[in-house]
């Protein structure tokens, strides 16, 4: 006989008012609602999409032909290799410059928008301003500044930096806020000043987070630098891409430029992975 089997088995009667258990909990219902709403918007949008008397079979065929010309037969076209490589370097430099400038300013602004360091009204108002700047697309900032400074590198740098600052302030201040209030209180109680707390206690512990956010922004800034070249005439690879496709209709050059951009993107991904891994190991 099994030891812990019960000798007198009781039949459990269902209670008079059984609680219904359903798979459709409130979050599930909301999820379904959201998905249905999005699906409806999609259907409406696809039905009313302005195709501009486009013949789809023709369009897709020409897309196929263009893609073939671009990716299978890339060539330099009007420009030459040294010009394109120089433009590519300019794009990378533009991304580096704006990321460095953005990171520098963003760190100091982030200090004043972290809830555990400054009074909450100051933090909230700085965060609100940054949310507003962030919500305006980068390219609009560049265009706006290009009126004041003239088209070209200066407007591009300032516009890109503006958006980078707003983005990084959010990321940095959230990292700073992860430092426990007890640490800061203990340091304050022992008479450590405001800036030493930041540079000796908070900064060393959040460096990996800052680094990874800055790298993410660097990748975004590279894509943005290309966009700025195409739409606002900064003298970088985006400008040549725009000229090759919009003016010379040279698919071969577009293909080459896309290959160059892909190469940089892949190098960036590998470098950022290595650097992050290296830094995370050390800390």
């Amino acid at each position: 006989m099994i030891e812990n089997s019960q000798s007198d088995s009781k039949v459990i009667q269902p209670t008079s008012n059984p609680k219904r258990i359903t798979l459709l909990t409130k979050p599930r219902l909301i999820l379904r609602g959201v998905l249905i709403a999005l699906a409806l918007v999609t259907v409406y949008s696809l039905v009313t999409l302005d195709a501009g008397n486009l013949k789809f079979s023709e369009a897709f065929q020409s897309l196929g032909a263009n893609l073939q010309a671009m990716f299978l037969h890339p060539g330099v076209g009007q420009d030459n290799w040294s010009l394109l490589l120089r433009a590519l370097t300019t794009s990378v430099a533009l991304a580096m410059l704006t990321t460095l400038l953005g990171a520098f300013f963003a760190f100091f602004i982030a200090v004043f928008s972290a809830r555990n360091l400054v009074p909450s009204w100051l933090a909230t108002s700085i965060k609100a301003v940054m949310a507003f700047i962030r919500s305006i697309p980068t390219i609009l900032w560049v265009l706006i500044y290009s009126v004041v400074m003239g088209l070209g590198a200066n407007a591009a740098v300032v516009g890109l930096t503006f958006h980078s600052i707003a983005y990084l302030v959010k990321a940095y201040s959230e990292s700073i806020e992860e430092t426990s209030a007890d640490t800061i209180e203990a340091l304050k109680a022992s008479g450590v000043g405001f800036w030493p707390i930041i540079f000796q206690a908070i900064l060393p512990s959040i460096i990996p987070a800052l680094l990874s956010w800055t790298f993410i922004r660097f990748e975004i800034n590279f894509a943005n630098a290309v966009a700025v070249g195409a739409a606002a005439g900064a003298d970088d690879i985006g400008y040549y891409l725009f000229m090759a496709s919009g003016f010379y209709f040279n698919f071969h050059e577009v293909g080459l430029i896309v290959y160059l951009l892909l190469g940089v993107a892949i190098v960036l991904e590998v470098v950022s992975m290595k650097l992050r891994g290296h830094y995370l190991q050390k800390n």
Partner: protein
Amino acid sequence: MKTNFQSPQQFFRQRRLRLGIVLAVLLVIYGVSMVLVNFQTLASLMQVPAGLIWLFKNFIPTERSISYLGPILYQLWRTLIVSVSSTICASLLGLIFAILGAKTTSPLPGLRLVIRFGASLLRNIPVVAWAMILLFSFKQSDFTGFLALFFMTLGYLTRAFTETIEDLDGEKLQALQAVGANYFQCVFCGVLPEVASTLTSWVLYMIENNLRDATLVGILTGTGVGFLFNHYFKSFRYDAAGLIVLLIAVLVICLELTSTQIRRAIA
């Protein structure tokens, strides 16, 4: 075992040295980039306040710009629904690719590599290049913007979905297989319900992102609210352009707040 005790002085000297080297490297990078880009730091930074003042003077919407409100709101609405629909279409396709390409649910190991590579290719071609490539074939129609956003989003979402599915506990699938569920039952009853809320929050994030990118695509391809901005901006109607900027900001912030609320509700 060799233990090396540092005196505090040594420790701090080493730390200062390391910090100095890092700062020097960053400064050199900054300097080289500055020369390459041909950027004047001081002169430009001095112009920033003047630029902001100019901005507030000229970009404040006036009574005249209110008359442009009709077309602006219409184009904004079009841009919003195009970014929503491109995200949703891309997410449907991305979900299929992710299920086929995730380590836990992939039917063929060879397929995984192909999907990984394809997604990374789509993701790393900048949206500008997509817009210019598609402009050749699809001309100046809403469809160009739709497809440019679609390809970008497909690359991002396939990767995000794949990682979400791979993060899932493999034991659950094993248990399902053990009781005799077939492949489709495993996917539709085991995997999808589990990841649905995470995937939805990715989709919401991409919608926000696409709304911002849609402006850029619009400027390049001559559609939507981006085209309207470019048009007013280039014809010096700054008050109308300012109204567009303001409305875009309001729309993006509203969308952010809504999707934060939804994310909290479905988590």
